[in-house]
């Protein structure tokens, strides 16, 4: 599904360049539920941006479901993004002057689906998120959890292969965080690859695979089997009341 081979990325900062990714080799299969962790500056967001074709890389190869993603025209990458990837952001990134339904329907607009039809589909997705009654509300009238659910609906509506989430729970309290994670888990169960960037261990622990980045390199990959160990390591940091039901 996703194949990264020796990916390098550096940012020009005036005269000096900042080498963020120093050779990432990574394989993510269809249907994986992966979290990327690491301290700030370790390059996790950069990696996610490259995965989402929002940014290009300097060296190496990136194959997304068999296609080499390199040097694409903006138009082509925009189309691929629209078809393949759904984004979820920490700050939700809803368009503030459009209501929930219109926000959700936006990706379909770029697919050229007529307004009536896309609004209908958007309503359907909102209903799945339990937000049907909020369809005509503006983003600033909704709570953080609701906004993030709208954002998830928007990410899902174009039926992507991958959901990329950059700290989806970063701006939420833990109760809503778990709600959101439950939704993402359901999404993953339907066969969509979900990749999230987080620095919260409890959130990471809910995924099937944890990739830990350190200084632009993959420090360790914790797979399913080892997750129990991982969970145990960090579970004691959580308050009992917030211990989620999935444990």
């Amino acid at each position, binding site marked *: 599904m996703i194949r990264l081979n020796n990916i390098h990325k550096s940012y020009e900062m005036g005269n000096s360049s900042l080498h963020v990714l120093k050779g990432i080799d990574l394989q993510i299969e269809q249907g994986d539920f992966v979290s990327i962790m690491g301290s700030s500056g370790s390059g996790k967001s950069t990696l996610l941006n490259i995965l989402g074709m*929002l*940014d290009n890389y300097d060296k190496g190869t990136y194959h997304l479901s068999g296609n080499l993603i390199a040097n694409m025209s*903006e138009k082509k990458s*925009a189309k691929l993004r629209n078809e393949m990837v759904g984004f979820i952001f920490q700050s939700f*990134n809803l368009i503030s002057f459009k209501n929930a339904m219109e926000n959700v329907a936006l*990706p379909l607009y770029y697919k050229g689906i007529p307004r009536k039809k896309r609004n209908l589909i958007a309503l359907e997705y909102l209903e799945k998120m339990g937000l049907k009654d909020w369809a005509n509300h503006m983003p600033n009238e909704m709570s953080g959890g609701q906004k993030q659910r709208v954002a998830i609906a928007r990410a899902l509506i174009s039926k992507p292969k991958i959901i990329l989430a950059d700290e989806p729970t970063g701006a939420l309290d833990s109760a809503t965080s778990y709600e959101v994670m439950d939704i993402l888990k359901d999404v993953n169960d339907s066969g969509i690859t979900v990749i999230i960037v987080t620095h919260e261990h409890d959130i990471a622990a809910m995924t099937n695979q944890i990739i830990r980045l350190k200084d632009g390199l993959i420090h360790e990959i914790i797979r399913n089997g080892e997750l129990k160990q991982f969970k145990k390591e960090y579970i004691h940091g959580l308050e009992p009341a917030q211990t989620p039901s999935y444990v």
Partner: protein
Amino acid sequence: MLMILLGSGNGLSNGVANNFMNDAVNAMWIWQGETTIPYEGMKSGRQIQFHNQDQEIVSKVSGVGVSSGRYFMGNTRYSYLKESGEYTTITCQPELKEVENLILNEGRFINQIDIVQNRKVVVIGSDIKTALFKDSVALGEYVNINMVPFKVVGICTEPGSTRNRNAYMPLSTAQMIFSGSNRLHNLALTIDASTLEESQAIEDQIRNVLGRQHKFDPKDEGAIGLYNKLENYIQTMKIFQAIKIFIWIIGIGTLIAGIVGVSNIMLIVVKERTKEIGIRKAIGASPSSVIGLILLESIMITTIAGYIGLVLGTGLMEMINYFMLQTVGTAPSQQDSGTIFLNPTVDINIAVYATLLLIVAGAIAGYIPAKRAASIKPIVALRDE
């Protein structure tokens, strides 16, 4: 803004064109003079005298439309009952009406039968009528002109003139009664020319034929005087064309200033909406659709604002027009001779052009900001909090 400029420009040229209409724009007057160049053994300083046949000669020159010979009698005494006054009498042929664009208030102008039968009829200017007849009916009455009774057949005004103190009587009658023999003082005619060159060619031809007739050098400017209205008209129109071009330049200048302004606003809009554009791009908006979004907005702004301007401008022009007509109306003696402005409005064509121009202007104004919006990288946009 452009509308107001164009409107007033149009008004100015309409007004002056109207003033020109006082006489036929293609009118030409020829009067006799003194030779200044010796010719065929004759000394200079010879008086040229026009005769009836000169008119026939001139009327045969190609390009000459209607023509009329004129025999002037300065200060002839007109009297009716106890009233009398001295006025200029112009003796003429029926064609003069067309050359001078005379307007008949009552009755008729001199006609061909008057000429042939040497009828003693006269067409008097409206001022003469008021002076001699006051409020009573003048048509059909007899006035004594230098003690000879003439029948009043018409009352006329000269357009654009404040004084209508001329009287017109048939050439043949006047020549006979007032011992004019077959002499003429000047010729009035219309010519058939649309350009300066054509009218000058006709002028030269007339000089040639008259020169042959009266034996003077065609190049002799003094022998006959010639006033070509068309020449004047064309020159004035050229000035107006220049003014029009100037107005357009100013208009386009303001338009460019407007474009820069809108462009600036759009840049700010793009800056403000960076995040939104980033989101749109992240979920699959192609650069062209982003450009479309910004361009559309820019065009909307310019067209709406422009349209309001257009309506205001046209409204203002209509208002000026209205008030100008009002002031003219309150001063009837002035007629419309005093106004340089006339009908300062723009026609629908220009309005359509202006609208198209606005759309184009909007597109130009929006293009640079749109380009910039399209080049925004989604990650940069999303980072922008």
